[in-house]
């Protein structure tokens, strides 16, 4: 337990000093800030432009446009930023050899994984929380009628999906060696999940639905009950990935 706290602390210091926290927090802050602002200003920007006499008429933006922007930004650029920031947390240490000294001191390998997962989830949660908070505040400020359905649950779904992706990165890093092992395989996993979602029957169980139904939840066209399976399965897959990566990491030649 002590070793777990010590190594998690090291991970957090690493995030801070290698500017991982700064990058992720500021990127997410920007998304939180930009999304409602863009939704509000886009019609005005476009109407101000004279496109060879053509006038573009856009209906008055609503709070749903703001949240639509928010989730679109986070599930695309936000996810990419998360992948890039966390993609090397294990792969880099493995290929550089910085773990050798530490493991030679008798630190259990599963502790390394658990610490890395914990620290990454902490940073992800902080960044995501910041984005959601700023977005919420700004939306409240800019829009009048701000009532939406299932806001908390919708936000939770994307948060859970982020945690799942972090577990997938760790698993990928224990499967593939090399600097970008974790990154490539995780990106591959996301692509596979996207493809699987083409089949309507699978949508109910696919973790990626947690990152695609967010606006539908707000609209009320999807309910939390519709995503119960997705939540349960994502939780199980997260735990499973951690467990499997612990087993694989234990066998890994260093």
């Amino acid at each position: 337990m002590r070793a777990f706290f010590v190594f998690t602390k090291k991970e957090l210091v690493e995030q801070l000093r290698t500017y991982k926290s700064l990058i992720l927090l500021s990127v997410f802050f920007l998304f939180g800030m930009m999304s409602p602002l863009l939704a509000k200003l886009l019609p005005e920007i476009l109407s101000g432009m004279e496109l060879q006499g053509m006038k573009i008429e856009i209906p008055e933006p609503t709070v749903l446009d703001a949240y639509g922007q928010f989730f679109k930004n986070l599930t695309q650029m936000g996810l990419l930023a998360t992948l890039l920031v966390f993609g090397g947390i294990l792969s880099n240490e493995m290929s550089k050899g910085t773990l050798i000294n530490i493991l030679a001191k008798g630190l259990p390998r599963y502790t390394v994984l658990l610490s890395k997962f914990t620290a990454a989830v902490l940073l992800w949660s902080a960044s995501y929380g910041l984005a959601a908070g700023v977005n919420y505040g700004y939306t409240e400020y800019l829009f009048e009628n701000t009532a939406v359905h299932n806001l908390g649950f919708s936000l939770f779904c994307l948060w859970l999906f982020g945690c799942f992706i972090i577990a997938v990165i760790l698993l990928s890093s224990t499967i593939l060696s090399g600097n970008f092992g974790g990154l490539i395989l995780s990106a591959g996993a996301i692509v596979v999940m996207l493809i699987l979602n083409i089949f309507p029957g699978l949508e109910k169980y696919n973790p990626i639905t947690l990152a695609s139904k967010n606006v539908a939840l707000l609209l009320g066209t999807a309910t939390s009950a519709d995503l119960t399976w997705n939540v349960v399965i994502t939780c199980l897959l997260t735990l499973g990935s951690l467990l499997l990566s612990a087993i694989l990491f234990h066998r890994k030649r260093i």
Partner: protein
Amino acid sequence: MSIIEIDQVNKSFGEVSVIKDLSLRVEEHAVYGFLGKNGAGKTTTMKMLLGFLKPDSGEIKICGEKVIYGNARTNRYIGYLPDVPEFYGYMTPKEYLGLCGEITGLKKEVLQRRTVEMLQLVGLEGNNRRIRGFSRGMKQRLGIAQALLNEPKLLICDEPTSALDPVGRKEILDILSIAKGKTTVVFSTHILSDVERICDSVGILDQGRLALQGKVADIKNSYRKDVIEVDLSSGYPIDRIMKLLKEKPYISEITSNDLRLHIQLSGQEKAASQVLRFLSEEEVPLLRYEIMEPSIENVFLEVVQ
């Protein structure tokens, strides 16, 4: 007591057999030089000692405890210095030693004291720069500091001097000389002069087998060839003395090179002193008289051929 016991260990990577039926013992308080050409299996053996690699067969014990692959509890006895140690570049040496000490559960006061002691030992005290900017020699020294932090019973160094300049090498050897009073040291190398400087016993690994092992003094003794070299001052008729010496029963062969005589003794008792006595009776003007010691280098080259 044996600190390291390796019994009939085999290891291969795919088709390539790297370690073949290796058995060896390292006694407590020894400074054990682990010699071998590049690719002889030194690093593989060390990684097996640390539980980083799994032997295909055989058993390894550290301080009487079996080494278990992947979760080597025996590592608490070991300080390890990898051949090119890598650190977290964003930390200072003090912070890094703090991390190492906390992971192993050193008490706060002990850790603080040991950190200061270790940084002094390796000459990095007062260095508050981040490790990122360190030279190779500094990293190697910090590597020794982290390895010795817990006062381990066994210090394993993988080619600690191979990548360093002469000054860096001397520094590392000096630190190891200090460390050897408190701990057993095993280090692999192919720099033979380092071995002669600080090792008291050696094992020579050749193609995955232990070709030779023992105390340095014993090995030198058993490889002593009973050869004497004599330098004469110039102007002396060297042919005359060669002729006389050739007839002696205690000399089996004699060659000359300019004013230097190379005398192979026949192995009789006191042959060496008889040569000396004869030379002084004949009033041969000597510049130098030396009973040749075999160097570890000669032994090594002979063994790994």
